[in-house]
C-alpha cells in the first residue's frame, strides 16, 4: 500500500509532464514570461497568471502574518490553558474547516459590494471583484495553518530559558521579543511557508472573486484592485472549454508549474519543522 502511494505521486507527475508535452515542445521556456494569453489566436503566455498568483498569495500572506503571529503568541504564551484558550483554538481550526466554495460565495455577495464602496472612496476603478478581494478572503483562509503550528512551537520553548530572562528582570514583552521569538523563528517561518503553499493552490474562492481576465494590468492600481487571474483559477475556468490540444496542454503546463511550486514550498516548510522538533 505504501508502494501504491509512491506510484500515485509518480503517476501524477508523469501524467502532468506527458500531457503538457505538446505545449512544452511548442512554446519552450518562453511560456513562463509570454505576456499574452489568447487561445483564439493560439498564443499562450503564463506571465499574467504567474503575476496574479504571486500577487494574491503575497498580499494575503502579508495581511495574515500579524494575525497568525498574534494567535500563536496569545495561545502559546499568554493563555495556553483554560476554556477561553480552547474555545479560541477550536474557532481558529474551524476557519480552516469551512469549505472554500462557501467563502467564495459569501465573498461574492457580501464582501464585493463592501470593497466596491471602499474602492470608490479611495478613488480607484470600482470593480469590487479582483486581486485585492481575493487576497482578503485568502488571508482569512490561510491564517489557521501558520497559527496552529505557531502555537505548538511557542509552547515548546523550554521554560528555563523564559524563567532565566524573567529572573534578570525582563518584562513579558521583552521575554517574547528576545527569548521566544528568536527561539521559534525558523519554525514560525515554516508555518508561513505552509500558509503560502495553501494560498498558491487555492482555487474556488479565488476563481469566484478574482474577475478572471487574462490581460496584464496597465498600472499598479489596476494590478492590485482590478480583476486578474491565477494559475488555479484559469485552469478551473478554461479546462473544460479547451477545445484543441495545444490549449489544453498549455493549461496542464500551468498545473505542472503550480504542482512544482507548491510541492517545493511545502517540502521546505516540512523540512524546517522536522529539523526544529528534532532539536
Amino acid at each position: 500500500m505504501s508502494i501504491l502511494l509512491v506510484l500515485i505521486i509518480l503517476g501524477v507527475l508523469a501524467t502532468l509532464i506527458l500531457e503538457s508535452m505538446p505545449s512544452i515542445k511548442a512554446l519552450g521556456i518562453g511560456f513562463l514570461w509570454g505576456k499574452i494569453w489568447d487561445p483564439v489566436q493560439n498564443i499562450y503566455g503564463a506571465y499574467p497568471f504567474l503575476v496574479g498568483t504571486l500577487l494574491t498569495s503575497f498580499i494575503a500572506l502579508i495581511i495574515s502574518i500579524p494575525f497568525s503571529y498574534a494567535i500563536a503568541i496569545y495561545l502559546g504564551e499568554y493563555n495556553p490553558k483554560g476554556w477561553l484558550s480552547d474555545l479560541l483554538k477550536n474557532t481558529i481550526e474551524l476557519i480552516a474547516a469551512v469549505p472554500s466554495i462557501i467563502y467564495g460565495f459569501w465573498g461574492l455577495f457580501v464582501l464585493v459590494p463592501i470593497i466596491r464602496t471602499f474602492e470608490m472612496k479611495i478613488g480607484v476603478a470600482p470593480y469590487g471583484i479582483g486581486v485585492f478581494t481575493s487576497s482578503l478572503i485568502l488571508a482569512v483562509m490561510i491564517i489557521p495553518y501558520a497559527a496552529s503550528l505557531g502555537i505548538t512551537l511557542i509552547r515548546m520553548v523550554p521554560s528555563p530559558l523564559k524563567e532565566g530572562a524573567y529572573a534578570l528582570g525582563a518584562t513579558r514583552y521583552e521575554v517574547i521579543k528576545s527569548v521566544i521569538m528568536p527561539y521559534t523563528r525558523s519554525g514560525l517561518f515554516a508555518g508561513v511557508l505552509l500558509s503560502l503553499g495553501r494560498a498558491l493552490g487555492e482555487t474556488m474562492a479565488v476563481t469566484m472573486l478574482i474577475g478572471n481576465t487574462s490581460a496584464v494590468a496597465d498600472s499598479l492600481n489596476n494590478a492590485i484592485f482590478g480583476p486578474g487571474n491565477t494559475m488555479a483559477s484559469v485552469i478551473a475556468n478554461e479546462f473544460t472549454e479547451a477545445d484543441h490540444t495545444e490549449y489544453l496542454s498549455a493549461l496542464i503546463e500551468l498545473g505542472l508549474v503550480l504542482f512544482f511550486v507548491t510541492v517545493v514550498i511545502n517540502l521546505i516548510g516540512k523540512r524546517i519543522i522536522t529539523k526544529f522538533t528534532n532539536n
Partner: protein
Amino acid sequence: MEAKIGFRNTKSVIFKGIVVFFAFVITLPLIIVLIYIIKQGITQVNWHFLTNVPAPVGEKGGGILNALWGSFLMVMVAAVVAIPVGMAAGIYLSENPRTKLAYYSGLCVDILQGVPSIVVGIVVYFWIVKPLGTFSALSGSLALAIMMLPIVIRSTEQTLRLLPDSLKEAALSLGVPYHRVILKVIVPCGFAGILSGITLSIARVIGETAPLLFTAFGNPYLSSSLTKPMESLPHLIFTYATSPYDDWHNLAWGASFILLMFVLILNIVTKVITRKWKIQL
C-alpha cells in the same frame, strides 16, 4: 530608573493588548460568515427542498436532492477506497519507520498533502474521464479519495506510534502471529484515533469543489450511476452561485447551509472522539 521601569511595563501591557486584539479579531470574519450563511440558508431549507431536484429557471420551488445524494454517494465510494489503503499505509509507516520505502512514502504523503486540489482534478481527468470518454461519479470519487489519503495515513501512523511497545510485545510473547497482533491488538487500541482521522478527512473532502469540476462535473437530475456525471453539494453551490438568477442564488444559499452543517457536525464529532480518546490513554 523608576520611569524607565514604568515605560517598559507599559510597553509590555500595550504589546499584550495588541496581541489579544489581533488574536480575537480574526474570529470575526468566521462568525460573520457563519451567521450570514445560516440566516440566508435556513429559510430555504424545508422538506420540499431536501427531496426535490432543482427546478428550471422561472419555476418556483426545487431542491437539492441530486446534490445531497451525489455528495453522499461519491464521498462513500471515496472512503471505501481511501480508508483501507490509508490505514494499511499508515500501519506500515508506524511499524517500519526506518526502511527506505517508509522514507519515500512518507515523503509522498507530504507531497500529496501539498498538491493543490485542482491538480488532482486534472490528473484524474486523464486517468479516468478521458479513457472512458465521459465525466463520471467514479472519477470524482477517485479524486476525493486521493485527497483523503494523506489525512487517513498521518492520523493512523501518529495514533499507532503513540501506543506503548509493551502492548505489542505482550501479544507477541503469547504466541500470537504478527498479522493478528496488528489486526486484533494494535488497530483496536488506536481505533479512536484512526476514526477521528477518517471523520476529519470526510469533513475535508465533502466541501471540495475543484477536483470535481473536471471529474464528476455535475448533473441537474438525480443519478445513482457511477459511470455518469453526478451533482455534488459544492459543485451545485458553484454553478448556482455564479448564475444570474435570484431563485438559483437562494438554492445555493440553502445548499451552503446544509454543507456547512455537515462540515461543522463532522468537525465536532472529530473533536469529541479525540478528546474521549485522549482521556482513556
